[in-house]
C-alpha cells in the first residue's frame, strides 16, 4: 500500500522554507557551495541554489559529490556505479558547503559524504539539507535543514520522486 506524504506544492514550500533558513543562517554572503549527493540530491541542490539566489542575489556554486567509494558497505553489497564528482574550479577551501540529499535515514551516506569532502578540501562550514528525515539513525548525525520529518518503521520504504529524474515531484511511503 502506497501513501503519498508530500505533493509537488508541499515539496516546493519545503524547499522555499529551507532556502530562507539557509540565507538566515549564512554568516557572510560569499562562498556558498551546494553539493548534491547523486542522484536526486543533485537536482535538489540545483533547486535550492536557485531559490537562495532569488532571495539574496549572490554568486552560488553548485556541484556533485559522489560518495560511493567512501561507503562502509562496499564489501557486502554488489558493485555500485560511481558518478562524477564536480566541484567549483576554485575548490571548496574556506567556503560554506551545503550538502544536499533527498532522504536522511541511517546517516551512513552523510558520514561517507563528510569523508569525501575532507579529501576535496577544507570548507569553513559544512551544513546538511535533506528533503525528508525518516529517522532510524545509526550514527550520531543530524541534518541542519529538514523539509519534512517523517516518522516511519524500518520495514517501510520512502520513495522520493523528483521531476528532473522521475517526471513528477512526490514523496510516498510504501
Amino acid at each position: 500500500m502506497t501513501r503519498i506524504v508530500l505533493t509537488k506544492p508541499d515539496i516546493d514550500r519545503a524547499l522555499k522554507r529551507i532556502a530562507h533558513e539557509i540565507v538566515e543562517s549564512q554568516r557572510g554572503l560569499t562562498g556558498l557551495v551546494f553539493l548534491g549527493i547523486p542522484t536526486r540530491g543533485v537536482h535538489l541542490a540545483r533547486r535550492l541554489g536557485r531559490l537562495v539566489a532569488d532571495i539574496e542575489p549572490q554568486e552560488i556554486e553548485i556541484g556533485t559529490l559522489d560518495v560511493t567509494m567512501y561507503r562502509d558497505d562496499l564489501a557486502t553489497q554488489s558493485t555500485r556505479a560511481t558518478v562524477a564528482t564536480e566541484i567549483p574550479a576554485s575548490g571548496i577551501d574556506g567556503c560554506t558547503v551545503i550538502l544536499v540529499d533527498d532522504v536522511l535515514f541511517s546517516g551512513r551516506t552523510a558520514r561517507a559524504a563528510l569523508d569525501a569532502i575532507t579529501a576535496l578540501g577544507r570548507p569553513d562550514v559544512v551544513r546538511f539539507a535533506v528533503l525528508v528525515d525518516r529517522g532510524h539513525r545509526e550514527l550520531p548525525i543530524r541534518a541542519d535543514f529538514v523539509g519534512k520529518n517523517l516518522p516511519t518503521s524500518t520495514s517501510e520504504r520512502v520513495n522520493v520522486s523528483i521531476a528532473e529524474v522521475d517526471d513528477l515531484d512526490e514523496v510516498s511511503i510504501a
Partner: protein
Amino acid sequence: MKHLISTRELTTDNAIAILDTAIDMVDVRSRDVKKLPTLRGKTVANVFFEDSTRTRLSFEAAALALSADVTTFTSQGSSVSKGESLKDTLQTLEAMGADFIVLRHSHSGVAATVANNGWVDAHIINAGDGTHEHPTQALLDAFTMRSRLRGDAARGMDLAGVSVVIVGDVLHSRVARSNALLLRTLGANVTLAAPRTLLPREIDGWGATIVSTLDEAIEMQPDVVITLRVQKERMTSGFFPSESEFSEIWGMNDSRLRRLPSTSIVMHPGPMNRGLEISGSVADSPQSTVTEQVANGVALRMAVLYTLMGDSR
C-alpha cells in the same frame, strides 16, 4: 564478477561500467588527496612469476590509491627455486591475508587454472599469462581510445564504428588477443596486420580482418594503430628474415604516420623496441598515447579492483 581472467568474459555493459568508473578514478588522481579509503584493510598480493615494470608498478599504485595493503612476490629469489609449487605459493600468500591476487605467469592458462580450481578464496586478476591474455592492458587501451576519440562525451559510450589496426607480433602477444576480443565486444572493427609466421592459428574467433602488409592497413585510414612489441624472448626460431626487414614492412614510422588522419592515434603497450616495431619519433609524437596509456593504467586498475571487490561469489 569475482575474477578477471579474460576479456572474453566481459559483456559490453560490464566493460563500459569499468571504463566509466576509471573516468572517476582519473579525476581522483588529479586531486590534492589522491587516495580513496575503498580497500582499507584489504591486501593485494602482486604475484609475478615473470618480469614486469609497468603492470606491477601500476597495480601497486592502484592498490595503494585505494588504501589497500600491498605485498609483492617475485619468483626470483623465492622458494620457487627450491621447487615450491604454484598452488603452495599462492596458498602461502593467502594465509598471509591476501584478498586479491594479481598474477603474472609465463605459461598460458595459469590464471584460469588458479581461479577454477578453488585453491584460494581470493579474487584473481590475470596480469598476463604467457601468450594468452592480459585483460587489464586491453581495458586500459580501450579506455585510452575512448577518451581520445570521444572526448568529454566518453562516459557510457562503446567503441562502435572505431577502426583499430593491431600490427606486428600477434602470435606471441597476449595484448593482441585481449584487445581483439574486448574491442569486438565494444563494437570496434579490428584489423590484424602481421607476417603469416607471426599470426596464431586460431584467430577465427577474434572477428578480425587480416591484411598482409601494414601499408594496406594504413590505406584503410584507421582511427587507431596498436603496435605490438616484438617478443624476442619468446622466439625460438627465425620468424622473420631480419630486424631491418621487419621494421621496413611492419614498423610504424614517420612516413606511415603522415599517411594516417591527423586525428588517428598510435598506441604501444610497452616496453618498446624503438626502431623496430615503432620509430622513436612516432613514439614521441603527439599522436602517440604511450605515456597516456601508462597513466590511465593506474586509474583503470583501480576501477577493476573496485569492481571485483563487490562480488565475493
